[in-house]
């Protein structure tokens, strides 16, 4: 899959199979008008309730996932003091310790940047049509049924 993305002056959304580069989302949002950049990186955790994960495997409804992330970013950008937003999400297999999602938000001050970043990851987990499957060390695989 070639990356699916939408990029405007204040917003960069991207879905890609290749490993994520956290520096890319941060570099995009850095801005002279900003006093703060908040970022979030979601990574594959090895242990969940005593079970060992080796990989998370992500599937997306590509075009709608990008459209939904754009919608969330545009809502964040309407908030007072939010300057730029970038969200990159990976599809396919993401090994332990690797990043599945990177988000960066710039704002006039840290408060609005932290808040918008937190809301973006929380809403992404509820609304963006992406699904993950746990691939466990014992060979079993299970779709993750609900977001945290």
């Amino acid at each position, binding site marked *: 899959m070639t990356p699916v993305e939408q990029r405007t002056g204040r917003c960069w959304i991207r879905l890609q199979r290749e490993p994520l580069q956290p520096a890319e989302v941060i570099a995009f949002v850095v801005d002279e008008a900003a006093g703060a950049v908040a970022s979030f990186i979601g990574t594959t955790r090895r242990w969940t309730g005593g079970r060992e994960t080796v990989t998370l495997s992500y599937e997306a*409804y590509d*075009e*709608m996932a990008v459209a939904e992330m754009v919608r969330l970013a545009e809502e964040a950008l309407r908030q007072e003091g939010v300057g730029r937003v970038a969200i990159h999400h990976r599809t396919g297999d993401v090994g332990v310790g690797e990043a599945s999602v990177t988000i960066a938000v710039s704002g006039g001050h840290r408060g609005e940047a932290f808040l918008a970043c937190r809301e973006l990851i929380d809403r992404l*987990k509820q609304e963006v*049509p992406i699904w993950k499957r746990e691939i466990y060390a014992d060979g079993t695989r299970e779709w993750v049924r609900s*977001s945290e």
Partner: protein
Amino acid sequence: MSGGVVRILVFSSLRELIGEAALSVPVSEAPTAGAALEWVAHRHPGVADYLPFVRTAVNRRYAARDTELSGGDEVALITPVSGG
């Protein structure tokens, strides 16, 4: 009621249950997003268990089940998402 065909997309556990990622249905048999969901549930045992949890999308936006469909529309049956 217009003619034509709607395309129904399924993902993750629903895709595996059905064994296909996309289905084509005449609009006359799936005049609304909810009817498209029921059309799939009627033909694939097991899908009925998902009905309370599935959200419908039409042309890449979440849409209520009573949203009317036209030929060429793309309906997606979206089980609870787990990105991030």
